[in-house]
């Protein structure tokens, strides 16, 4: 399979006095691969994500997407943030259409139809005309994901997207994400603090070291798909999560 995202010796320094946040990261992600990134807090996971999206440039090294170096913000990237960050003055459907409205100032009937279809896929079509504050946190985050899918990006960057949700909602929305991913294949870069979430969702788990952080280890998750609640009960699942946990504790120690 084609290499979609490639990081070669990427370093990033915000403040020279504090030293680099990220040092010499090498990583390549295949097209439509689901990669989870875990690591101790403050290890620059979000920085990594922003460099892939082109919002931030590496101090040294290269970030390539489809073999082209990233030099400015990319349009073929959808971002989902930790908080839903919906616009409180727009209805759900208008929030989903916001990227178009914001970029071009308008949207067509077909695009509106596509937004509806995406909402339907996420089970939100009944809420299209509701205001964001009428939705639960889980539903708001689902709208956030749908918004990121609107421009049909090839890469989906998710920065701890479920961390603000309660445990039950979190598991459910994880499975929903997998359904969406199956229906609309994307290359996913998924930052999380939850080891079981990473194991449940991803094809590979990248474990980052502490600052100045680099890739400590990459673990292949060879759990069968589709993944369900049954997956959690597999002995393999426990083995993987234990391994990841050990590696992270080794890093924080």
């Amino acid at each position: 399979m084609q290499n979609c995202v490639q990081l070669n010796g990427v370093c990033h320094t915000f403040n020279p006095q504090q030293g680099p946040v990220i040092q010499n990261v090498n990583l390549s992600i295949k097209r439509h691969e689901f990669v989870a990134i875990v690591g101790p807090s403050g290890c620059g996971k979000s920085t990594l994500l922003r460099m892939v999206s082109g919002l931030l440039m590496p101090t040294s090294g290269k970030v390539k997407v489809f073999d082209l170096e990233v030099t400015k913000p990319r349009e073929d990237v959808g971002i989902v943030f930790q908080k839903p960050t919906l616009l409180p003055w727009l209805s759900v459907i208008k929030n989903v259409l916001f990227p178009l409205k914001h970029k071009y100032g308008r949207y067509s009937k077909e695009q509106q139809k596509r937004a509806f279809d995406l909402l339907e896929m996420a089970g939100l079509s009944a809420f299209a005309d509701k205001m964001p504050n009428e939705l639960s946190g889980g539903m708001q985050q689902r709208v956030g994901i749908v918004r990121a899918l609107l421009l049909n990006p090839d890469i989906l960057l998710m920065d701890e997207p479920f961390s603000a949700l309660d445990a039950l909602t979190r598991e459910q929305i994880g499975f929903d994400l997998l359904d969406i991913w199956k229906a609309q294949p994307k290359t996913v870069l998924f930052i999380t603090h939850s080891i079981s979430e990473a194991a449940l969702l991803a094809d590979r788990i990248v474990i980052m070291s502490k600052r100045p952080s680099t890739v400590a280890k990459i673990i292949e998750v060879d759990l069968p798909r589709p993944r369900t609640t049954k997956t959690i009960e597999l002995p393999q699942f426990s083995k993987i999560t234990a391994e990841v946990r050990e590696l992270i504790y080794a890093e924080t120690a």
Partner: protein
Amino acid sequence: MQKPHKLNSFIGLIVPWTFWFSMVLVWELACQWGEIPEYILPAPSVIWQAFLDVEFSRWLGHLWATLRVAFLGFIISVAVSIPLAIIMMRSVLIKRILYPFLVVIQSTPVVAVAPLIIVLLGTEDSSRILITCLITFFPVVVSTTTGMLDTPEELIELSRSLQAPRYRETWQIRMPYALPHIFSGFRVAITLAIIGAVVAEFVAAEEGLGYFIQFSTSFFKIPQAFAGLIFLACVSLLLFKSIQWIQAWWFPWSMPSEN
């Protein structure tokens, strides 16, 4: 859930009104029994009589003169402040240049500068409007700037990743996010606009509620001055509330939640 809420709103309505009513009653009785002379503190009933003694059309004339200046001053200061806040938000350099200047204008007592403005601009509405603007613009600039900087960083990143034009970032994201702040700035500014108009009338005016109060005190008509003062306070309160109503009506999502 519903019942205690209803009771609350009932108490919330009754208690303040009862409080204010009993305050007025205490005032009235204190004046009657305590034999407080009228030139020190007139009783509410005396003030009410003084209010009725002035023809209503004259009240309206004075009210119109003050409101005209206060409104125009408020509108012009909003029209200047918001673009100014946008410019300062966009450019740190311009902000560094302008901000000290704005603080200097704000901390200069307008009462002291007012006579100079009258000499420069004459005794027409324009000088009074300028005085009002000088008093009102600062809270609007500060609240708009604060509000626009309060926008979630993620949305700005979203905007940048879309490579949208910057004016849309300002117009579609920052401005609506700043609205709650802008409106609290407006609420402060509208009451300041009334103060500004009155200060200006103290310096030069031929009509208006401030002029009327000054006139009444100069003729030792203390109850009439009090009537003017209370009328003015009511108008201020009404304007303050109207800003809230406008916000609730046009931008219901921007209202602060009750809890």
